[in-house]
């Protein structure tokens, strides 16, 4: 039932990676998931079209036109335990609908000042949507494509600024890892890569990282 949207006003910040990791890991834990591809680039649909290794209880569907999108989310929420929506990289009507209907909104961002400023503007949009919908829309920022080894000074400064402004952020970061690119090259899931014996660097660390993100999300959804 919970609807989780992955949204950002900026492209290339890791929305599709975040949505795909979340959906595949939930599905591999035995949860039925519908992943709605609302990004015109269709990266999730292309990943699913590779066929190999998509978990059976994960259904990837393209988003309908804006006036059908709401029905689609209703129908998905009635049939799957989790609905994940991967949105396009700009604030618009689809993102606004998805945000309004969501139980939780994930905002991926990279650790640059430019990304941070756009993220803050996007959060203001969500806050304004909260006002008109008269309900709290839980959200959190996740830092993506970070270095697994070091934390640059600029990113640390942005994290401190977010904390000071009371902007919720995930403790887990989605690091820039070869394994996360590999699932889009070869199809399937991280666990599938492991089972296939593919030679992908730091695969175990990538799986631990993604699992930690999903665990943290589930805690936040339950909170």
């Amino acid at each position, binding site marked *: 039932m919970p609807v989780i949207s992955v949204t950002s006003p900026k492209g290339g910040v890791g929305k599709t990676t975040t949505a795909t990791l979340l959906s595949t890991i939930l599905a591999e*834990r035995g*949860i039925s998931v519908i992943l709605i591809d609302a990004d015109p680039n269709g990266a999730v649909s292309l990943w699913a079209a590779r066929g190999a290794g998509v978990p059976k209880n994960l259904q990837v569907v393209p988003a309908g036109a804006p*006036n059908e999108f709401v029905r689609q*989310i209703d129908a998905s929420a009635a049939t799957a335990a*989790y609905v994940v929506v991967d949105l396009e990289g700009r604030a*618009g009507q689809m993102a606004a*609908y998805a945000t309004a209907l969501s139980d939780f909104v994930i905002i991926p961002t990279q650790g640059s000042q430019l990304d941070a400023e756009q993220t803050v503007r996007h959060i203001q*949009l969500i806050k304004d949507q909260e006002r008109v*919908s008269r309900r709290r829309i839980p959200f959190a920022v996740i830092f993506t494509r970070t270095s697994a080894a070091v934390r640059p000074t600029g990113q640390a400064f942005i994290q401190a600024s977010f904390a000071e402004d009371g902007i919720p952020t995930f403790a887990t970061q989605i690091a820039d890892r070869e394994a996360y690119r590999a699932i889009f090259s070869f199809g399937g899931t991280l666990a599938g890569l492991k089972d296939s014996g593919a030679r992908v660097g730091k695969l175990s660390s990538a799986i631990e990282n993604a699992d930690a993100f999903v665990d943290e999300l*589930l805690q936040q959804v339950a909170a």
Partner: protein
Amino acid sequence: MSQNPERARPSDRLNVAGMREVLTAHGYSEPFTAAPAPSPLLGPWRTGRTQQFNMKASPDTVQRFAAICRAYNWPSGLTLQHAVLALEEKLAQVRLTKGRDLEP
């Protein structure tokens, strides 16, 4: 009879006029599409429950299952559907990946 009286639909949260007001205030200038129609509730003739499913269970489980069916006036297939969704959500939360911790 509602198919799902205890669960709100996500679209129940939607305030289209308010959403448009917010987007306009944030500089979104593209024309809006028509307001989305509310989702119709599925009637019993379109449930998608087409497959027979028989099993053995303890008398206690059967009685409790039947009690839920009676309480909500749900057919057994719909009760099973809700039960599976609820269990999946619970398992997601407590991360009982193999489900064995729920065994008595």
